[in-house]
């Protein structure tokens, strides 16, 4: 089986005059399989948003290539299909909603695809149900909370029935409740509908929910591993000015003091169990 998204030797720079070493994206080789849940972490300006925009041909490589479901993003004729395959959700929900009525906003993408009105209606209902916003379909987005707006934005992408959704810091403008709701929706889309998820984030707790974490710095991929392994690279995370999850820091420090704790603890309850077991020893 071929990968859903594949980058081969991807380089990118807005202006081509610098040397390739200092480009925004530098020699990115990546392959994301169908159904994966990938988080991309990295400090500000590391190129993670730029990379995400390559996944659905909003940007095209300056050098190298990006294949989405086998289609080259460089080719103009593929763009329509690529954007149907990989949908993208951005940071600010206000700047993604185009209609004053929720259901009309969600209908926007299927309308662009030229679908039959009945098919559009059923997709809109399905998408709103998938993000748990069906009760609000006749509301105006202006009166919704940030988390609700962001879920409507996700529904607007879902209505295209993409295989993959790329989310560019979808929770960074939300309150804790909205953040939790959006994360629950994202997990559900991955579990229930088998959607491939690429989540760009600053938050370690959010990255911990993915199956695979990619850490970027200065246009390069520094780490690409499971969250369990990535979170124990404490020195690297600190050097990149990323928050080290409290749990992994605690476990590593205790281990340095000679207390035996198992590897790969990322969740609070796992940690509690391990500590209880260690205390009983």
């Amino acid at each position: 089986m071929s990968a859903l998204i594949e980058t081969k030797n991807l380089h990118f720079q807005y202006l081509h005059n610098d040397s390739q070493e200092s480009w925004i994206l530098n020699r990115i080789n990546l392959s994301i399989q169908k159904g994966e849940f990938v988080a991309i972490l990295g400090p500000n300006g590391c190129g993670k948003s730029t990379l995400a925009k390559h996944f659905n041909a909003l940007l095209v490589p300056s050098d190298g290539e990006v294949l989405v479901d086998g289609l080259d993003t460089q080719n103009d004729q593929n763009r329509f299909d690529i954007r149907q395959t990989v949908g993208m959700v951005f940071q600010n929900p206000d700047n993604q909603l185009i209609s004053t009525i929720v259901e009309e906003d969600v209908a926007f993408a299927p309308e662009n695809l030229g679908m039959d009105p009945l098919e559009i209606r059923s997709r809109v209902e399905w998408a709103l149900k998938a993000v748990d916003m069906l009760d609000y379909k006749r509301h105006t987005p202006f009166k919704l909370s940030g988390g609700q707006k962001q879920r409507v934005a996700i529904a607007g992408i879902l209505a295209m029935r993409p295989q993959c959704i790329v989310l560019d810091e979808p929770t960074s403008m939300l309150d804790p409740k909205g953040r939790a709701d959006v994360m629950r929706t994202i997990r559900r889309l991955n579990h229930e509908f088998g959607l491939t998820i690429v989540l760009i984030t600053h938050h370690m707790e959010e990255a911990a929910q993915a199956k695979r974490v990619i850490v970027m710095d200065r246009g390069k991929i520094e780490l690409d591993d499971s969250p369990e392994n990535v979170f124990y690279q404490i020195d690297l995370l600190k050097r990149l000015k990323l928050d080290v999850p409290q749990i992994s820091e605690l476990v590593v420090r205790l281990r340095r003091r000679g207390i035996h704790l198992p590897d790969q603890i990322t969740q609070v309850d796992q940690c509690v169990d391990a500590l209880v077991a260690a205390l009983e020893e």
Partner: protein
Amino acid sequence: MTRDITIGQFLPGHSIMHRLDPRTKIVLTFFFIIQVFISRSAASLCFLIVLLGFLIASSQVPAGKVLKGVRPMIPVIVFTALLNIFYVSGEPVFTFFFLQITKQGLFTGFTLLVRLTALIAGCSLITYTTSLNALAAGLEQLLAPLRRIHFPVSELSMTISITLRFLPTLAEEFDRIIDAQKARGAEFNSGNPIKKIKSYFPVLLPLFMSAFRRAFELTNAIECRCYQGGKGRTKMNVLKLAPRDFCAIAFFVITFFLTIAFNYYFPAPY
């Protein structure tokens, strides 16, 4: 902080007028305007007033609200009426130096007063009973035939719908910038008019910057959702004429002919 901004003056409701297809309402509004202009005799004017009363009743919009909507136009109406009173020549009833009021002038002036008031009140009904979204959708489908001559109908309606969507967002942003500048010591309510206008520059500049930033992000979001202009686009909500729409059209055709009949059998005295 959040202002509840309603653009236009739509009053949600379930009257027959609310439920009519927006296209019917747009076309019938034009019908009504023509009717106002052909109502020349006293009888047809009376009929026009009755018709207007009936329309207001069927819209369930409070009559006071409709008349309030006419209020800002009163100076214009009165001025037009007065102009006609003094300028129409004919049988004089009152002369003062060069000023002359004639019977014909009085009649024309008075009919204009009634007609203009009816015109504004009647046209405002459509804005009270139709949301801007519905109006835009109706307009889009009415203009659809213009696509043949390459008039960008769906692009136009997309522009209107995005404008409606972002006006409240930008208004909110405007408030926020004003607060931010006040917090930095800016004053907006003092000084002479020129100073006042100048004090708004530090608000407008950030507002424009933010509008452009939003526009760029919106462009990306729209491209992600496969927008490529009006070509091949379909709509989820297709407007459909219901029996009540045909009834309304028939009703207006009848009143139209009645007006002509009133004009013919009870002609204007002058």
